[in-house]
């Protein structure tokens, strides 16, 4: 091997190492190891000082699945997924179909509908906490206008989850709409023109042509929606903080209140592992089955 070639090879491998090591180190230290450590800690009772030494086996998990509040938080997460999939996403698709064509004002509507998505969850939660406030809020004002006693939507067990669904809908339908619009705009003009020549109306075109073509996009948005719903936290904190009487926890707010706040590193990690297993199982099955072709 001549020296020029040798130098080139040396330069290649030194570049490789220098380019990849920083990302690899940070990723391993702050993503991969913590996930593995969470699995390990979840078998201990530990306050985070010294080494974990009080091995408790599966006790943390057993306690978790007997705990009513955790089961409720798990259910809440799945209700949110169900509502997202069966109400929010179809609604977003409907709006996307309306404004993906070049109708008057399409840009204006796109901008407005997307706007809530870029707002911080905390701010969204605070705005709606005000709107739902039974004394000062907008909902109260509407009730008062009709001479009725205003409800305290986020302070009452029966309505708190509904209040949360509305906020989630308000904040997130815009991103799904935008994803669908991006998909719809990639449909070739010829296909749509052919459909028009054949006399297909807008509803037939949407149902028979547009939706089947953007199916991969829809599958992606379903996927993002599920994983997003499972990790819901920020928006709940300013709105209900998991209350009233622990009715509106998600798994992550449960983890925060019962694991982090109480410095229970073992128990908290067990909650984290359950969240991980659910996300991971869904992600893998989804990619193996529905998204395989995409």
């Amino acid at each position, binding site marked *: 091997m001549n020296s020029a070639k040798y130098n080139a090879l040396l330069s290649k491998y030194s570049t490789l190492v220098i380019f990849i090591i920083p990302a690899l180190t940070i990723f391993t230290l702050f993503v991969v190891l913590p996930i593995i450590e969470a699995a390990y800690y979840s078998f201990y009772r530990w306050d985070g000082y010294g080494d974990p030494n009080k091995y408790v086996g599966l006790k943390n998990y057993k306690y978790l699945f007997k705990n009513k509040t955790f089961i409720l938080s798990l259910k809440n997460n799945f209700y949110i997924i169900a509502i997202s999939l069966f109400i929010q996403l179809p609604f977003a698709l409907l709006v996307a179909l309306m404004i993906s064509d070049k109708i008057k004002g399409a840009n204006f509507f796109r901008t407005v509908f997307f706007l809530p998505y870029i707002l911080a969850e905390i701010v969204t939660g605070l705005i709606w906490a*005000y709107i739902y406030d039974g004394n000062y809020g907008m909902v109260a*004002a509407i009730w008062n206008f009709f001479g009725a006693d205003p409800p305290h939507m986020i302070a009452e067990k029966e309505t708190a989850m509904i209040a949360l669904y509305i906020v989630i809908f*308000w904040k997130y339908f815009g991103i799904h709409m935008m994803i669908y619009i991006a*998909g719809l705009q990639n449909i070739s003009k010829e296909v749509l023109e052919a459909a028009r020549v054949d006399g297909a109306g807008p509803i037939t075109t949407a149902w028979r042509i547009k939706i089947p073509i953007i199916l991969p996009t829809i599958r992606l948005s379903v996927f993002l929606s599920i994983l997003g719903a499972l*990790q819901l936290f920020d928006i709940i904190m300013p709105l209900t903080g998991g209350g009233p009487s622990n009715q509106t926890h998600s798994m992550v707010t449960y983890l925060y209140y019962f*694991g982090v706040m109480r410095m229970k*590193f073992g128990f908290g990690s067990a909650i984290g592992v359950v969240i991980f297993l659910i996300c991971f199982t869904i992600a893998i099955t989804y990619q193996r089955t529905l998204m395989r072709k995409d």
Partner: protein
Amino acid sequence: MFSNFRSYYMYLFLFLLAGIIFIPLYVSIAGGFKTIGDLRTNSLGLPTEWIVGNYTSLLVDNKFWLFTWNSVLYAAGTTFLVILLASMTAFVFAHMKFVGSRFLFNYFILGLTFPFATAILPLFLRVRDLGLLGSVWAVILPQIAFGLAFAIILFRGFFRQMPSELFDAAFVDGCTYSQFYFKFTLPLSTPIIATVAVINLVGSWNNYLLPLIMINSESLYSWPLGIMVFRGEYITDWPKILAFVSLTLIPAVVFFLALQRFIVAGLTGGAVKE
């Protein structure tokens, strides 16, 4: 005739929906200008009397600016380093053949399915044991780590589509890999850099859970932490809270309207290109 009829209802629907999106934002901004009594009797209308005190007292509050500045630091630090580290790594995956490259790439990709919540307790311990609690790195490093996987995928996809002739020609001229990265790859990648930047800027700016776990001294609060503490102090003094909310709302909306093209392309394109 039929089509006019339908489009009439469609526009009615769209304007109603736009109203539902706008009204919460409008009542917040207007609410910041009201007295608490005014808010109680007149929550939908314009302020009976415009009170600017809630806004001005925040604007002269050093803490308000400190929290904003901290958030700028977190967002800028995270975004800059994610772009640099992810693009370097993606460059290797896109242009170099080596044993284990597929394995390493999949290793990073795995990170996409890791929920952040699972990692928080061990992450807190790691940051504590590294002695980073109480520094900006307690927020920046984990944010970088969780931003890398997606950024690497986006960069790699983009780099692979660059014409290979460019690469070959540069090598004949004796260009090294690192020279090529700095002279050609980076300057030619502005669209994907913009996408990655938007995703990480917005994500870091709005992040709440991570700073909540990592930061316990007020001097390092990000603005979401600051606003939650403020909310805790004033509880039902809504005009004060709404003024704070609006002061964070207005720059976000202006920023969004000014850079809308990039932001929408970044956030949706980012999702779709996956």
